[in-house]
């Protein structure tokens, strides 16, 4: 029994760690455009986002309940499986943060869960069609929807606002950006903080501490909200730089159009029952806004690396999750080994990141973090929008053939 509560404690701590990485991974979604256009000072922007994330965490427990009550069959799940899933998700989040690429934390979590489930219950436990409808289609749809909306909105705001200049327009676009970024933060808090709450609740149910179908207890809500807010405040400056400066150069009008489009897509999709990833929507919106301005360019090399990362997210996290689950299967020392490995590789990633520090002081410098994965970044003339689709569908199936980069980290 003592051993049992220990594994539960480990799961809760790991879940909060995931929540933390989720927070700092996704600060970019809400605040990258606001920071890069100078609407808010970097520190102010992340502080505001953190507060709104915290507020969002308390607004409802709807999402948490769908996770803890529906996603997986509660009866078959052991805390070790959840632990293994979280290990996969955290490592992928840290790795993509290191190379400064935005990728979906939800996909990482799903990938981890899928991998761990396969390792523990076999291939049959995963439904391929659910994978396509819940992961693949949204991953292609989100950037397209948000991108096209942002593109049209950018065109419109430039042509309507031709005569708008001076102080009034500067202040106006600033206020607009802050409002839409605030909405994205709030939505993120309700969605993503609650995912962690759902996971912790699921673990508590699986461990027998909570009765099945319970709502998350107060301490779970509070700690999950705080973890995501703290992560958000510390800010994934590397990803903010990629999204705000790396993909395209944003002017206030574009930042406003992009952020409004992203906020609308996120809210519309979650409300209409076709959930789209925040990260994918925001990245798509930023690119759409980049294409919408006359003379605007999208750096397709950065965009392509990002698409590859999206495609790899699920299989890579699944692979790590599966390996972790396999090792925890050896008993208590296996679990300890995985925990040590998680802490060790996180520390290593952090150590590597210190070689090239990116924080609030240099977040708006256009240079890419050289030497990590980066190749030269020539600004290419944008191909017509139609080609994005091909590029997406071409990069997404690739992961199965090359999950090697993540294997190297194991």
């Amino acid at each position: 029994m003592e051993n049992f509560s220990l594994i539960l404690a480990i799961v809760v701590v790991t879940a909060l760690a995931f929540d933390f990485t989720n927070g700092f991974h996704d600060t970019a979604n809400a605040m990258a455009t606001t920071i890069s256009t100078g609407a808010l000072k970097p520190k102010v922007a992340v502080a505001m986002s953190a507060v709104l994330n915290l507020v969002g965490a308390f607004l409802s427990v709807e999402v948490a309940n769908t996770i803890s009550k529906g996603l997986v069959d509660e009866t078959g799940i052991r805390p070790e499986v959840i632990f293994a899933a979280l290990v996969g998700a955290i490592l992928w989040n840290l790795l993509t943060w290191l190379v400064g690429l935005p990728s979906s934390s939800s996909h990482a979590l799903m990938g981890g869960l899928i991998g761990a489930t396969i390792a523990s219950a076999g291939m049959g436990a995963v439904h391929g069609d659910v994978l396509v409808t819940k992961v693949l289609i949204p991953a292609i749809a989100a950037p397209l929807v948000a991108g096209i909306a942002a593109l049209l909105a950018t065109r419109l705001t430039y042509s309507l606002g031709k005569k708008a200049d001076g102080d009034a327009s500067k202040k106006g676009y600033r206020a607009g950006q802050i409002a839409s970024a605030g909405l994205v933060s709030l939505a993120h808090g309700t969605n993503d903080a609650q995912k962690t709450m759902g996971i912790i609740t699921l673990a508590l149910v699986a461990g027998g501490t909570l009765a099945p179908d319970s709502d998350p207890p107060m301490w779970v809500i509070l700690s999950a909200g705080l973890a995501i807010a703290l992560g958000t405040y510390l800010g994934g400056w590397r990803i903010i730089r990629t999204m705000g400066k790396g993909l395209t150069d944003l002017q206030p009008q574009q930042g406003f159009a992009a952020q409004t489009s992203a906020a609308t897509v996120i809210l519309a999709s979650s409300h209409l029952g076709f959930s789209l990833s925040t990260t994918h929507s925001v990245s798509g919106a930023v690119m759409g806004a980049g294409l919408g301005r006359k003379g605007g360019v999208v750096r397709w090399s950065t965009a392509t690396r990002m698409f590859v990362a999206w495609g790899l997210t699920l299989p890579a996290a699944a692979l790590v999750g599966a390996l972790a689950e396999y090792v925890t299967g050896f008993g208590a020392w296996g679990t300890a080994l995985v925990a040590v490995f998680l802490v060790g590789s996180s520390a290593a990633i952090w150590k590597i990141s210190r070689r090239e520090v990116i924080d609030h002081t240099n977040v708006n410098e256009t240079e890419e973090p050289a030497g990590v994965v980066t190749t030269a970044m020539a600004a290419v003339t944008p191909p017509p929008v139609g080609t994005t689709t091909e590029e997406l569908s071409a990069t997404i199936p690739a992961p199965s053939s090359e999950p090697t980069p993540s294997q190297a980290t194991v």
Partner: protein
Amino acid sequence: MKIDWAALGSVFGVSLVVTVALVGLFTLGISGLSRRERAVAQGDSAALAVTGAYACFAACAAAVGYGIYLIVA
């Protein structure tokens, strides 16, 4: 495999219309305010433009309010 094209389509349609409408309204509001700025500089007032501007902003604020409502609900 069943893909919910209807839901995807409505997400696409609603997002597109709402985004473009909001950004359009907001831009009109900004244009109105900057017209006042110019008018004031010349000693005029631009009452109509300003009223229109605030109406636009009010509509945007209502949309944000609805967004918050959707998040909470």
